[in-house]
C-alpha cells in the first residue's frame, strides 16, 4: 500500500468521481453497474466503492469507481482519493449553476494537484429534467475545450450516455497506459511477469465528446 508504488496492475484502473453533493455521482456509477449486469448484482447499499469490468478493444479492463465526498466540509479530503487514480470524472448538475462553478474549481484543483497524466472528464448529469436546465451544453463543451477534457452529458435516471462515459474514459486511460508502458521502463521490480499485459488497443475517443 506504499505510495511509492501506487499503480495497480495494468488491467485494473481507478476512477474517482468528484462533484458537489447531490449532483448524482453515485447514481451515475450505480446506473453503470446495474445496467450492465442486473442479474448478477444484488441491490447494494454501499455505493462508495464500486467495480465494473468492460471491454476496451480486445482487452477486458476492470474499473474501480471511487466515490468521493462532495460536501464542503470534506473538501480537503479529496486529494487522498484522486492521488492514486488514473482517471477522474468531475460531475455537475445541469440544473445547478452553482454545481457547474464548483466543477470548474475541481478541474482547476485536479490540474494542479493530481498526478500528471490523470485523465479528467467533465460530465453534466440530470439532462432528463426538461425545464430545469441552468447550464447549457455549450457551456460544458466550452469548459471542456478550454481545459482539454473529455466531455459528456448524461442522465443517471434514464441511463442515457452513462455507459459511454465510462467506455470513453477507460479507452483513454488504456491508450495512455499502453503508450507509457511501451516507452517507460517497467516499474515493477522483482518477480512479476507483465509482458503479456501490454496489449495495444485503439483509442476511438476524441478529446471532446458530446452525448
Amino acid at each position, binding site marked *: *500500500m*506504499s*505510495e511509492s*508504488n*501506487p*499503480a*495497480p*496492475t495494468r488491467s*485494473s484502473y*481507478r476512477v474517482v468521481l468528484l462533484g458537489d*453533493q447531490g449532483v448524482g*455521482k*453515485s*447514481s451515475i456509477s*450505480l446506473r453503470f453497474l446495474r445496467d450492465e449486469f442486473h442479474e448478477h448484482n444484488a*441491490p*447494494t*447499499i*454501499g*455505493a*462508495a*466503492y464500486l*467495480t465494473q469490468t468492460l471491454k476496451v478493444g480486445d482487452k477486458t479492463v476492470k474499473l*474501480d469507481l*471511487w*466515490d*468521493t*465526498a*462532495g*460536501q464542503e*466540509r*470534506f473538501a*480537503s*479530503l479529496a486529494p*487522498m*482519493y484522486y492521488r*492514486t487514480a488514473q482517471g477522474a470524472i468531475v460531475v455537475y448538475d445541469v440544473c445547478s449553476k452553482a454545481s457547474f462553478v464548483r466543477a470548474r474549481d475541481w478541474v482547476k484543483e485536479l490540474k494542479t494537484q493530481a498526478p500528471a497524466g490523470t485523465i479528467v472528464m467533465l460530465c453534466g448529469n440530470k439532462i432528463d429534467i426538461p425545464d430545469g436546465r441552468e447550464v447549457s451544453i455549450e457551456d460544458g463543451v466550452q469548459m471542456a475545450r478550454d481545459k482539454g477534457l473529455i466531455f459528456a452529458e448524461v442522465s443517471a435516471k434514464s441511463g442515457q450516455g452513462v455507459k459511454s462515459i465510462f467506455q470513453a474514459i477507460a479507452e483513454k486511460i488504456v491508450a495512455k497506459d499502453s503508450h507509457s508502458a511501451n516507452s517507460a521502463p517497467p516499474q515493477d*521490480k*522483482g*518477480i*512479476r*511477469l507483465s509482458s503479456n499485459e501490454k496489449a495495444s488497443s485503439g483509442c476511438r475517443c476524441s478529446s471532446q465528446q458530446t452525448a
Partner: protein
Amino acid sequence: MANDIDELEINPFYKALQSRYVDLYEKAQKNCHLLCIPQTTSISTHIINTDFVDTHVLRPSPYFKDQYMTTHSSNCKTLTLSDNGLYFTTSQGFSDIRDVKILGEELAYNKEYKQYKIIILEEPFDSKFKIQTPQSKEDANTHMLTSKLTVKECTDFLQSFPDFKEILHTLNQKIQNFINHYMVLENYLDDAASRLQDICTQTTVEITKYLKAPLNSNIKLRDVLAEAVESYVMNAVHDKVFAVISSHLSKQDQTLLTKYQHINKVRPDQIGVRREFSCPLPMAVVELANLSSLRTPREKLVCLKSTVDNITEGVAVSLQELTQNSEPDASVAGNPEICITSDDLIPILVTVIAKAKCSHLNSDLFYVDHFMWTSADRDRDDLGFCLVTFKAAVQYMVETDFTSMATCLDKELMTNLEDMLTATTLLEAQVTQESVEKSNTKSMRDRRERQLNRITGFLEKTVQELKTNRNGNEKPKHLQSIFPDLVTPHSSATSVSNQSSQRSSANLGDFLSALQDDEFDQPFGKQT
C-alpha cells in the same frame, strides 16, 4: 442424520439401487445386508454396475466379528470394520488395502420390519471406482492459491513446503539480524521499510526458485507466497517497528484520543450522518476495537475492511427495520435508490472510530501504508479504498473542532455498553442458529468466539473508563443500580476479566441483559 437423508435422496448409487438394480436391492433388504453408499461427490453414474453394487452391499462374515464380505456370487472380497466403527479397511480381493471413512449411518426396516443399516462412505471401497476428476486436486490448488491472512496460516503455509526449509532458516537469521542490530529511527522509518521490503523480496525470489513446474509459472501462487513471507516477517519485527512508529506519531495519536471524547458527545447528525443511517453499529465498533491487537499490516488492513463491511451491513439491517416499521409514504420506505456514498461513509466511520477508541489509529494507518508491499492493489482494491476512507476520516477528525458541537449528555460510555449488549445478542443469535443448522461449524464458531472475546475485552476497558470517569464526581448510587457487581473498587475489572474465553455467550448475555432495563440515553437513531 438430516444430512444423510438429503445425501440419499440425491445419491446416484442409491437411486440406481431403487431402479436399475431393484432386484439386488430387495435381496439385500430381505437379508438385512449392510448397504454402503459412497457419497455423491465421490462417484459418477456411469461407474455404477453390478460389480459396484456387489462391492457395496456387505454381509457379515460368518467367521469373524467385525469382518464383512461383499455379495459377489463368486470371489467375494473381505473388509474389516475398525474397532471404533469409524472406517472400513479393505483386505482380501481388493486392488489395494485402504481405509474408507464412514460419514454416517441410517437404520431402515424391510418388509418384515427387520432392521438393516445404510452407511454413507466417504468414497467407494475400491479405488478402481473412484472418479478421476481433478476435484481433490482442484481443492488443493484452491487452498494453495488462497491468500493467507493470519500469522499462523502464513507460517503453516510456508512450512508446508519441505523445500523452503533452508530459505526459512536464512530468513529467520535475517530477521534476527534486523531485530538485534538494526536501529529503527523515527525519522528514518522509510529506511526500515525498504530494508524489510528487501528481505521480503529476496526471500520470495529465492522461494519461487524452489517451486516446481507448473507451480513456478503461477503468478497467483507467487503473490500468495509473497504475502505470506511479508506477514511472516512483519509479525516477527512488529514489536520493534511499531514501538518506533507509535512514538513517532504519539502526538497525533494523543490528539485523536481527545477528539474521541468530544465526538462521543456530539449527535451523529451534527457530524453529517444522515438520519436514516443513524443507528448503533456495535459489530463495527467491536471489529475496529480489535485493530491494535493485530500484528501484521495485512491483518490490520483486513480489519479496516471488515469494519466498513460491518457498517454497511448494520446500516442495511437498520434501514430494513425502519422500512418495515414506518408508514408506507415515509421518505425512507421502499426507496431503492437509498445508498451509502462517501459523504455518508466518512461521518459514520468517524462515530465508529470514536466509539472503538483505537489508541494508535494514526500509527496503525501509517504502519499499513508503509509496511505492506506485495500485490497490495491486486484484486483487492476495496482494501485500498477502505484505507483511504479511514485516512480521510482521521484527517477530518483532526481538522474539525467538535467541542463547539458538543451537546449530548455525558452518557456515551453507557451507550457503548448498550451497543455491546446488542452485539452480544446478535452473536448469540448467530451462534444458536449455527448450532441448529450445523453449518460450517469450526471456522465460523471460532470467529464468533473471537468476537465475543473482543467484546469482553472491550467491556473491560469501557467499565474501567467508566469507573475512572465517575469516581468521585458522580452519584455512586446510580451506578450501583446499574452495575450491582461492578462498582466496588476491586470487582469491576476483575469480574469482567474473569470471563475467560471459555465463558459462554449466554452468561455474557445475562450480565449485559441486566443493563437492559436501565434508562440510557440513546443518541443514535431515534432522537428527533
